[in-house]
């Protein structure tokens, strides 16, 4: 995020005149709407906002935001965004990427952006598939995923985006669902966080990977969503279940909560700054556990850009550029006429 005197805008102000070209029913539409609803609420100004993306269906996003935008090349959005932010720190930088773009070809740049903690919002549209190239499996695809490149099912273990982010040093990790109403709030928290805010959004690719998230996104399965809130107990399934700690094995477990008495059940209270719990939450195997959603971890530390500018200020303090002098130093001598 960055500090600008907020101005009044409406979601409409953030829409471009460009025809949106995703498949009818694609989850990307919902995310686009959510972002366009978020911008006015955070008091963003369109001309001071930049959306940077890589390549993929998701990465078409910038064309639809009435801001500055850069649709770059596959996997490199974090690196381009780093240059944008360092060259122009007043800009509010949003990076849009897909599971292939951010975690396959772009994994290294994602890792280093998180490590350095560049101040920006990183939205990962995770549909567990390569949409734009017509449906090959991706690093987030579950084992056994049949796709044009894995006709007999994929055999490699999928990566857990949020676990990867924590391992890379992320200081803000959140999860949401393309169509979930909470998405706007998650995006606002991401924007409020100074540093790289990593947001994994489960996005339904209706054409090549329809309903992979149905296990917790479908109306019938809402009970499998664990929405986390800082300072609040980790309750789900209409507060009839909660997450507690098994101290012996130092692992999480699901406990029943009888008539709301969650303390008795030993349900954990969510502390967004607890890294250990964050590790456990992002690694909870779904099925046996619910899907942890919302802000999983949020513990700011100095951003890369601020550190760079502080050093620049300190180093250049009182130094005046004098090119003529600069090139005239070193091993010099004078030849007289």
């Amino acid at each position, binding site marked *: 995020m960055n500090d600008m005197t907020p101005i009044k805008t409406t979601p409409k102000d953030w829409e471009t005149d460009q025809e949106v070209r995703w498949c009818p029913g694609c989850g990307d539409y919902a995310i686009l709407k959510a972002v366009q609803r978020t911008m006015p609420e955070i008091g963003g100004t369109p001309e001071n906002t930049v959306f940077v993306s890589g390549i993929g269906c998701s990465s078409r996003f910038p064309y639809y935001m009435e801001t500055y935008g850069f649709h770059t090349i596959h996997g490199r959005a974090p690196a381009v965004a780093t240059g944008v932010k360092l060259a122009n720190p007043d800009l509010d930088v949003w990076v849009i990427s897909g599971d292939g773009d951010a975690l396959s070809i772009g994994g290294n740049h994602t890792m280093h952006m998180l490590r350095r903690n560049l101040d920006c919002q990183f939205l990962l549209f995770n549909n567990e598939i390569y949409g734009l190239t017509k449906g090959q499996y991706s690093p987030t695809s579950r084992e056994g995923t049949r796709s044009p490149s894995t006709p007999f099912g994929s055999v490699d273990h999928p990566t857990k985006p949020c676990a990867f982010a924590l391992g890379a040093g992320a200081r803000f990790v959140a999860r949401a669902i393309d169509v979930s109403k909470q998405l706007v709030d998650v995006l606002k928290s991401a924007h409020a966080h100074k540093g790289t805010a990593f947001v994994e959004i489960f996005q339904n690719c209706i054409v090549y990977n329809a309903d992979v998230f149905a296990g917790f996104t479908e109306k019938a399965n809402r009970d499998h969503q664990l929405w986390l809130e800082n300072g609040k107990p980790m309750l789900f399934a209409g507060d009839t279940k909660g997450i507690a700690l098994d101290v012996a094995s130092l692992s999480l477990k699901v406990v029943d909560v009888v008539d709301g008495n969650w303390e008795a059940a030993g349900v954990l209270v969510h502390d967004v700054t607890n890294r250990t719990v964050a590790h456990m939450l992002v690694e909870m195997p779904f099925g046996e556990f619910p899907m942890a959603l919302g802000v999983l971890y949020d513990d700011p530390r100095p951003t890369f850009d601020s550190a760079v500018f502080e050093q620049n200020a300190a180093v250049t303090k009182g130094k005046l550029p004098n090119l003529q002098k600069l090139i005239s130093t070193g091993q010099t001598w004078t*030849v007289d006429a």
Partner: protein
Amino acid sequence: MATAARIDAPDNASPLQSSEAVVVRFAGDSGDGMQLTGGQFTLSSALAGNDFATFPDFPAEIRAPLGTLFGVSAFQINFGSTEIETAGDAPDVLVAMNPAALKTNVKDLKPGGLIIADSGEFTARNLAKAEYDANPLEDDSLGKWQLIQFNISQLTLDAVKPFGLGNKEALRCKNMWTLGLSLWMFDRDRQPIIDWLKDKFAKNPVLADANIAALNAGHAYGETAEIGQPGMVAIPQRHVSAAPVEPGLYRTITGADAVAYGLVAGCQLADVKMFFGGYPITPASSILHALSRLKEYGVMTFQAEDEIAAIASAIGASYAGQLGVTSSSGPGIALKTEAIGLAVMTELPLVIVNSQRGGPSTGLPTKTEQSDLYQAVYGRNGDTPLPVIAARSPSDAFDCAIEAVRIATQFMTPVILLTDGYIANAAEPWKVPDMSTYQPFPVTFLDHVPEGGFKPYGRDNKLARPWVKPGTPGLRHRIGGIEKQVDTGHINYSPENHQAMTDLRKNKVDGVADHIPYQDVCLGTTSGKLAIVGWGSTFGPIHQAVRRARAKGMDVSHIHLRHIWPMPKNLGELLKSYDTVIVPEMNTGQLKTVLRDQYLVDAKPLNKVSGQPFRIAEIEAAIEEALG
């Protein structure tokens, strides 16, 4: 006794009498500080008013084990009373601080050349390491050269004894003893070196005094030996008078520093800030190092996680309104080619510096070569034209960097600037330019909606599109790597539009030719029997060879290209005005391809791909063969 010296000279006269230029090579173990010795000797040559050129040649290993053949570090200087453009072919004098240094360098020495050897280092152990069965100082294997040997190690220890250094530290002063002797040999003033030592060791006066003592001892040895002390043999002395050079302030400069300063100068003239995204690689790293100290000049340096991130961040910075610059060597440039395509498609200014090294693949990282011209001119997918310019020397790299910035910002295009390992590392005298004499070329960021409306892909008369800083109200727009619609810059897949944009991109880059000088002939005539056409760091040897050939009355001229793409508009006509065109390159014939394609001239390649610069003699021979 320990300090006994012997001289074995063939009948022919001392090598130092002859020509008006002398080539000296200092060679020793990487630990012996030869680069330092060379650097200081260079300074004193400069102060003596000589023109000169140098060539440092250090091992690929960071710190090779003591005394090994691959651990030898050498520094060659060619200085004289006339114009000097190369570090010289064969040395007249070789200073060999150990057997390995002798073994690896003596074969280059001129017949009758002078060897100065530290006999103290010619121990059985060191001889073995250098794969000598017998001590060459003892047998007559060095017969065709002059040999002066004495125990420099011992003499140094004696000289610095008073300062009570440890043996290791004391021996580190050897190079100053040698330098002192060299200064005497060429009748040079010691004071500047003494001042430099005082300054260098300000924090440790004892070391300063010890080194100064060694320096003086070396110098004194020359003197006393001359007046014939027992067991000492006279050492030839020689004064090389000052070269007639333009008056003014001079300094030594390496290509790496020249590129860094030139980029800074270019950005000042363009009135933009610089963002440098780099990733270390030999021999390009020094540009990153130099720029990282220049923050007050509006330079931000970013060491990225890899070359792709380096250029991607630079492209991001260019989009955000600074001049993005990135730098690498061949293998790193290869990784950048996809992103270079993005810069071409989005028409953003960008400077890409390639300090070429020996290829292919990892190749010979510490050696020099010119084999990335194909990559620069042709090495991208799609029809992806961009301007390419090449520096001919360390000092020329300054102006080339400015030129790269000018073209990038004026035409909104990535530009590739080619230098090489030789240019990057070699130091040469540079007459410090007066910056007020440079014509500024300020960029104008579009900051309002022009009448007729804002067209992100509209064009000025140079076919450049407008540069807009994100943050500017009213000019919001989106760009990307998919084909752009003429004017609007929207995504467009139509055949007509792709043809139109392909032509626009081509015409824009071709149009650069209207804004660069005509090709000149830097030595000789604008027509005739033979033209030697070069580019990059072959300038020195070609120029010297052509000069020598012309002195012998041969009809040969030297043409040296700065603009590799697009080429100067008169080049085709110019080349056709010679009967024969020879193109010497440190590659298998890459510029040759471009010339033949563009002008259908029968350009004949003269190729050397050994990681070493051309020798003047090699080019002279080619000239004689062509004309004889």
